[in-house]
């Protein structure tokens, strides 16, 4: 690895840790991992406490309260569901600084005019931030499982399933982070890039889900946008290993393509004004 790339890795690590992006993402993830299981458990207990009142009103809520209050897997699933929605939005917005924020604030001008190359600029971003999100997601999922195991009456969690669920959700996040980094650095508009990625995270899985209904299509089944849903199910029973591996491999493949596109976009933007032009 050349000096420029090494220095760029160091720069991104300093940016991640010193700008408190790391701490905020960690707090958000850990916050959800603690809050969500306790919320579900609390709601279940509340419904139990009020079951007599509901009976008098002629409503049978015993099944609902049973679902909410019974097993630890519910707590982890609630966490994964929330992190897939709100957590992704928060995570992508916190990444704005790294996904085109330098172009927007013009802090990239001096390094670029000093000679910072496209490879050295882009590559560390595509290593550090997706990897950080993956690691934090696994940690947060394990945290949710610990909280759920303590809070719920029945601990039906299998540690292997928890880790798989965390990894799948982490890879899902990695993909969106890569999209955000690529779009943001290409456009120099991190806010717009985040909005597009957040929109895509809501719409695209839905489209795939609709398309795959009732259709035997392996490509649709293994689509990377199903990772979130796979993660939610994995708490109870992970998908078959082949399916999991193929889906993750396709997702990683898409991330590599997105990285190469990001590099291509930077190369396409390269300017050399000193070529002589014949004046008419």
């Amino acid at each position, binding site marked *: 690895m*050349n*000096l*420029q790339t*090494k*220095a*760029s890795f*160091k*720069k991104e690590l*300093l*940016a991640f840790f*010193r*700008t408190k992006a790391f701490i905020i993402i960690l707090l958000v993830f850990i916050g959800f991992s603690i809050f969500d299981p306790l919320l579900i458990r609390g709601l279940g207990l509340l419904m139990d406490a009020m079951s007599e009142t509901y009976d008098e009103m002629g409503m049978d809520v015993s099944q609902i309260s049973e679902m909410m209050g019974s097993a630890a897997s519910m707590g982890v699933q609630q966490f994964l569901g929330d992190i897939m929605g709100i957590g992704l939005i928060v995570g992508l917005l916190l990444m704005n600084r790294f996904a085109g924020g330098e172009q927007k*604030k*013009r*802090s990239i*001008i*001096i*390094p*670029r*005019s*000093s*000679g*910072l190359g496209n490879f*050295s600029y882009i590559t560390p971003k595509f290593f550090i931030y997706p990897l950080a999100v993956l690691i934090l997601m696994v940690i947060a999922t394990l945290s949710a499982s610990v909280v759920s195991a303590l809070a719920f009456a029945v601990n039906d969690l299998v540690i292997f399933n928890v880790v798989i669920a965390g990894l799948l959700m982490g890879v899902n996040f990695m993909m969106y982070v890569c999209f955000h980094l690529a779009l943001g650095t290409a456009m120099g508009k991190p806010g717009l890039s985040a909005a597009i990625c957040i929109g895509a995270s809501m719409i695209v899985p839905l489209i795939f889900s609709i398309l795959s209904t009732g259709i035997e299509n392996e490509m649709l089944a293994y689509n990377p946008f199903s990772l979130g849903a796979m993660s939610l199910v994995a708490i109870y029973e992970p998908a078959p290993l082949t399916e999991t591996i193929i889906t993750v491999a396709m997702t990683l493949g898409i991330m590599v393509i997105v990285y190469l596109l990001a590099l291509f976009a930077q190369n396409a933007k390269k*300017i*050399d*004004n*000193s070529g*002589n*032009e014949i*004046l008419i």
Partner: protein
Amino acid sequence: MLRIKGLRKSYKRFSVLKGLDMNLEKGDVYGFLGPNGCGKTTTMNIICNIITKDGGEVNFDGKKIKIGYLPESPALYGYMNGYEYLDFIGACCEYRGDIKARTAEVLEITGMTEGAKRLIKGYSRGMNQRVGIAAALYGEPDLIILDEPTSALDPEGRAEVMEIIRKLAAGGSTIVLCTHILSDVERVANKVGIIRNGVMAVEGDIWDVKSKFDKGNVINIKLREYTPQAITAICSADLVERSNANSVDGITLFAKDGVSEKEFYNKVIMNLAENNILPEGLEFRRLSLEQIYIGVTNGSLSLN
């Protein structure tokens, strides 16, 4: 070193550069002047390959040269301290020598050896500017471009930055100084270019430019006491076309057309000596750079 011919650039429908020419030699300290929004920063950004040009030629005499660029209001990485930032810039430059030593050196040049230990987000504007200059100098560039290096600085900050630029100029660096602070240019530059309406209205050695706009020789004399005899004696000297005299501005003598500077000066001095008049002050009155700049940019002055 740098030849620009017919440079053109537009932003949507607004044409900023309409055929700018510019010439810079090695060792020049070039004051690039113009009002706000005239295209100075656009020109510098084109030279540094930050934005594309629409037309024209930017030529470095066929050589590949290193440029050190200080943009206007440089944005640095606030989460780093000065040392870390410059070490990073050193890596970007692919500096072949000892990066740590070079970082210490450029910080020494810019007077930021102690200040650079703090995180950049806590810097004043002057400190920011100095680290920016250090970054521009880092790779030992052939050409240093400083875009508004003293804007938004307090007088102390300006003086510090100008002192750095003066030392660089004295050391033989080739510098383009984009500014609208004329006193800064007069202090350090040997060459000046004034942009107006997207083209270079005036360019050349500062003294040449001043003398081109001067309408003949003018000498101003200050006396301790303005007696009628003294005023008459001074104003009736040979080669004097006309004169003004008052106790505030002194006595201003306008030479006849065609009289050289040296001839006029000698005549005035001889006249003072013959009449036994000892002046308090005597100087050639020239149009200041500020007067030339204002005249050129508002169209009241031209070389045609």
